[in-house]
C-alpha cells in the first residue's frame, strides 16, 4: 500500500500534497509517500494542524501506485486532481 496526503490550499483552492519536509507542495512527485496504514494515519493527523491554521482545507489520504515508473493516484478523480482537467492539458500541472 502507498498513500499520500492531499488537500486544497485555502488561498486559491489549488490541489496540494504533503511534502517530504511536511510542507505542502503542488506536485505529486514531490509528495511524501507513506507505505503503512499507521504512517499514513499519523501524517494525516499531524497535517490537520494546517487545517486549523487555515493553510489548507479538506485533508485526506489517497492511494497511489506506480505506473510507467511514476506514482499516480489509483482513483481517476484523484488522478485528475493531481494532473488538472484532462480536457485542458495546458492548465494542468507539470509532473
Amino acid at each position, binding site marked *: 500500500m502507498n498513500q499520500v496526503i492531499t488537500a486544497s490550499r485555502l488561498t486559491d483552492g489549488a490541489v496540494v500534497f504533503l511534502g517530504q519536509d511536511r510542507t505542502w507542495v503542488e506536485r505529486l512527485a514531490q509528495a511524501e509517500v507513506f507505505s503503512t496504514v499507521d504512517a499514513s494515519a499519523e501524517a494525516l493527523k499531524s497535517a490537520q494542524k494546517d487545517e486549523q491554521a487555515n493553510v489548507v482545507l479538506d485533508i485526506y489520504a489517497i492511494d497511489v501506485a506506480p505506473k510507467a515508473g511514476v506514482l499516480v493516484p489509483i482513483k481517476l478523480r484523484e488522478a485528475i486532481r493531481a494532473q488538472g*482537467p484532462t480536457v485542458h492539458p495546458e492548465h494542468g500541472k507539470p509532473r
Partner: protein
Amino acid sequence: MYRYDEFDAQFVAQRVAQFRDQVARRLSGELTEEQFKLHRLMNGVYLQLHAYMLRVAIPYGVLSSRQLRKLAHIARRYDKGFGHFTTRQNIQYNWPALADCPDILDELASVEMHAIQTSGNCIRNVTADQFAGAAADEVADPRPYAEILRQWSSLHPEYSFLPRKFKIAVTGAPKDRAAIQVHDIGYHVIKNNRGEIGFAVYVGGGQGRTPMVALKIRDFLPEAELLAYTDAIVRVYNLEGRRDNKYKARIKILVHEKGAEAMRTAVEAEFAKVRERNLTLPDADIQAIQSYFALPNLPGKPVHAEAVEARRAKDAAFDRFVAVNVTPHKVAGYGVVTISLKPIGGIPGDATAEQMDLVADLAERHSHDEIRVSHEQNLVLPHVAFEDLPAVYDALAAADLATANAGLVTDIIACPGLDYCALATARSIPVAQRISERFGDSPRAQDIGDLKIKISGCINACGHHHVGHIGILGLERKGEETYQITLGGTADETCSLGTLTGPGFSSEDVVDAVETVVNTYLGVRRDRSEDFLSTFRRVGMAPFKQALYEKNEGAGI
C-alpha cells in the same frame, strides 16, 4: 433591458462589501471553513476539484455588450482566459483565487451583475427562453415576468432557507425552449380566449436522481397574480417540503407524495389567503418593468436581402449557417442568430475572453447591444438584420464561432463532469468531444437533423440527460467510468423523460453505442422529415435495444 435603480445598486454594493469582510476574516483565520462555507456559497463561490469556482447569474440569459465585455475582462484578469456557460444561464469561472472574489464581484456590480443566489437553498436565477423578445412565435416577452420574479425573490426573508434549492423558468412561446416542465415552477405565458395575458402554471418538475415532469396545476393564471401565486406555491413548499432528507427535499417529491389534487388544493387555498396580502401586481408596475424590455427600433427590411441570397447561392458553408443557426424574428427582415459554443471537438459552453469580446462587438454593431445565453450553452444575437448576416458570419467564422450545428447532433449539452466538478462520478466533456468528432461537420450530421444529446457526469443531472433525445449519464463502476444511455427524453412542450436502454457502456464503447443509436434511427425513420424523437415515439425502444445489445453480444458491460 432592466437597469438597476439606486436601491438595487446599493444592495449589491453592500453585499460585496460584506463578502469582502468575510473573505478577509477567512484568510486571516478568524473564520473557520465551517463558518465561512455558507457565506461563500451564498455569493456563488464553490470549491471544486482544482480550485474555487465562481458562478455568476445571467438573469434570464440576458446580457448587454458592456456586461459581456466585463465577463471577458474577468476571465482574462482573474481566471485562465475563458469561462463556461452553463445549463442554468450562468457563467462559471473555474480558477479564481479566493482573495480575488470580492474584486470580481465589485467588477460585476459595476455592470449590474452579481452571484447572489447562485447557490444554496433559495430561489435561484430565474431562467427564460433565449429567444425572448425576438422570436416570431412568441405570445409575449417572458423577460418582464422573470425580472418581476427576480426582484421579488432576491433575498426574500421567508424564502432564503427553503428545504432545498428552487428553480423557476418562464417561456412566452408555444415552442418551449426554456425547459419549463423540468423546473420547480414553470410559467408558460399564454393568452386566454378573451385575449388576456396570463400563465399556464407547472409545478414539481425536476431532474437529478428522481426526475419528474411537472404537474400542470393551473390552466390560466391572470398576469397580475404572478407573485401571489408564486408566493402560494413556495409557501406550501416551505411549510410542507421535507427537511429530513436532502434527497427528498425538492418540491417534486412533495407533489409526488402529496398527490396532484391535494397539492392543487393546498396551493389554491394558500393563494386565496395570499391575495388578501396584496401581492396582486398593479398594471402600472407591470408596464414599468415591460418598458425596460421594449423591442428596439427595428426599421422594416426586405425579407430577401439580395446580398445574402447571392452569398448563399455561392457559399455552401454560409448557406448552411443561415439555414441552421438563424431563426425567424418577429420583425420581417431580421433573424435571431444562434452562436454555437460547440465547435466540432470543442468543450460545450466554453468561450474565451477574445470570443466574448468579439460577440460583444457584434452585438453592439448588429444586434442592438443585446446578447442572450441559452440553457443549451450557446450564445444568441437576437436582432440581426438579414443584410448584416454575411458580416456577422465572417466575423464569427474568423473566431471559430460559426459552427452551423444549432440543434443538430453535435450541439451537445455537457456538464463540467469529473474534469472539474467535485461531485462528479465520470467525465462528460471528453465524451461530448468524441461524439462531436465522430459526426463532425459532415453531410451525415446535417442529414440526421434535430437531435439533442445531453450528458451529465453524475446523477445530479446538470447536463439534463433525462431530457436528451439521447441522454448520457456518467457513473463509476468498480473504479471505471461507465455510461448509461437513455432515449426519448425531451424538455420541450411535449416534455418526457428518457428511458434507459439497458446496461451501461464503457468510456471506450459509449461513442460507438451513440452511433449505433443514430444509425438505427436512420434505418427506421420514414423519411428525413421524421426526426429522432418522433421516430422513437413511433417505434419505441425495441429496435434500439436490439441494435445495441443483441447484434453485438458482449459489447455492453
